[in-house]
């Protein structure tokens, strides 16, 4: 099954990190990504720019409304994701807990709606 692992953390956390700590975090991510690729379960992965760069768009009754910022103000915001293809949820959980941000932020796991899921109740 394919799962999207969404990486949430408070953006303010990164301001508290020294350059060296930030380097270690990035190295941790590099290692994790390599491990995923090596295991043959990697689908896609990206890091996102901070929420200060976000734009939210809504179309209501044909009228466009564009606003600055993320769609909701939350303490933890999404900062990146991995798309993986593994056997089941337990396998996805095993990978999620290895993501460096799991130790200070949160990882939300969502299954992908696959073609064969259409037509199900």
């Amino acid at each position: 099954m394919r799962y999207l692992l969404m990486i949430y953390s408070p953006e303010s956390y990164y301001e508290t990190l020294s350059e060296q700590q930030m380097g270690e975090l990035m190295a941790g991510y590099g290692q994790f990504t390599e491990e995923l690729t090596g295991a043959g379960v990697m689908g896609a992965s990206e890091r996102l720019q901070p929420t200060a760069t976000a734009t939210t768009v809504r179309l209501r009754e044909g009228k466009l409304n564009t606003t600055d910022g993320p769609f909701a103000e939350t303490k933890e915001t999404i900062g990146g994701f991995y798309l993986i293809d593994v056997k089941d949820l337990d396998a996805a959980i095993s990978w999620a807990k290895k993501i460096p941000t799991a130790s200070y932020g949160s990882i939300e796991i969502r299954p992908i709606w696959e073609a064969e899921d259409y037509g199900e109740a």
Partner: protein
Amino acid sequence: MSSEASRAAVEAVFREEHGAILASLIRMARDFELAEEALQDAMLVALDRWPAEGMPENAAGWIMATARRRLIDRLRHEGQRRQRYASWWEREGKEMAVHERSWDAGEFPHPDDRLRLIFTCCHPALNHDAQVALTLSTLGGLETGEIARAFLLSKPTVAQRLVRAKRKIRDAGIPYQVPPMEMLAERLQAVMAVIYLVFNEGYAASSGEDLIRRELAAEAIRLAHILCELVPGEPEVRGLLALMLLQNSRQTARVSATGDLLLLEEQDRDLWDREAIRVGSGELERALCQGCAGPYQVQAAIAAVHAEAERWEDTDWEQILGLYDSLLEMGGSAVVALNRAVALSQVEGLEAGLAAVEELAAAGQLDEYQYLHATRADLLRRLGQKAAACRAYERALELCSNEQERNFLLARRSEVSS
């Protein structure tokens, strides 16, 4: 046999075997709903044939074989309609159908199937209510209406909980397996928590019309027995079983003839179920021999110390206090600290106990907890501080939702307000 009696006999067999058979069917189908439907089909066949032909010698094997055939039929049928089942049918279903004739009822039951099922039902990706309902429905074989009555919920509420939980298992890919080693400790905790919650729902119920709820306590004990069989190397599981047996031994003595709740101190100890105490203490000893004490074992030990005392005055409070200290060291909650304060009041006197309770009250964590105020009230009452005791009873009453406990608190309050 009358048709009603034979129907009841068939239903009793199905309920007894429900968990094991459904667990095996789910392993084969990888789908809760199809497995349940196949089991329902088998029951209809049994209702049709057993009264006339007599019950088969190996009833469980017969049900399994029949349900398995029906499952293959259903999968074949669904495979033509739905993509999901089509791929399953290609992969495994055909193979299963080919071996149908040579399938041996002796292969059944697989003990691992039930273990897989209980871990699936108590998966942390399901919420607590869903875990409980699903465990009772699949492993316990309770009907939706029975679960609803036991938890004082409407039948549609429980039915919806079950449907949603099964849908999440399917759509989120919650596996049907014994979790990998790295997750086993967390998952086993979740399973034990569900079983103990089911027990407490039943144990706390005590009036006549609550009989169905009391059966929950028996159901929890049955589930713990199964879990002990499945993971014999885990002393905490046995500790949980011992704890429930020991607590349940006092079920009849907990309530007076007029339906009032009785404290340990007031209970007629002749009403305690000696057999349950013997079995419970035996299980506890076996657990402790495995040499890895945990919170369930320590709580069981506390219950065992109470059970050993022939009279309230004979209670070995020093031992109980020591056990509460161990529980706190294991990371016990503020509730454990409250119980320790009660033990302390027995060992070192009411003032020492009250001081410990006041300290907990000041921390504020248990402010919404009825028993903090009830305990505080009790200690104040016994120290003769009537006005303060009365106020504490008032607060406890505000938080109380159980009818019997309410009557108890009202009676005590009137003692101090006169």
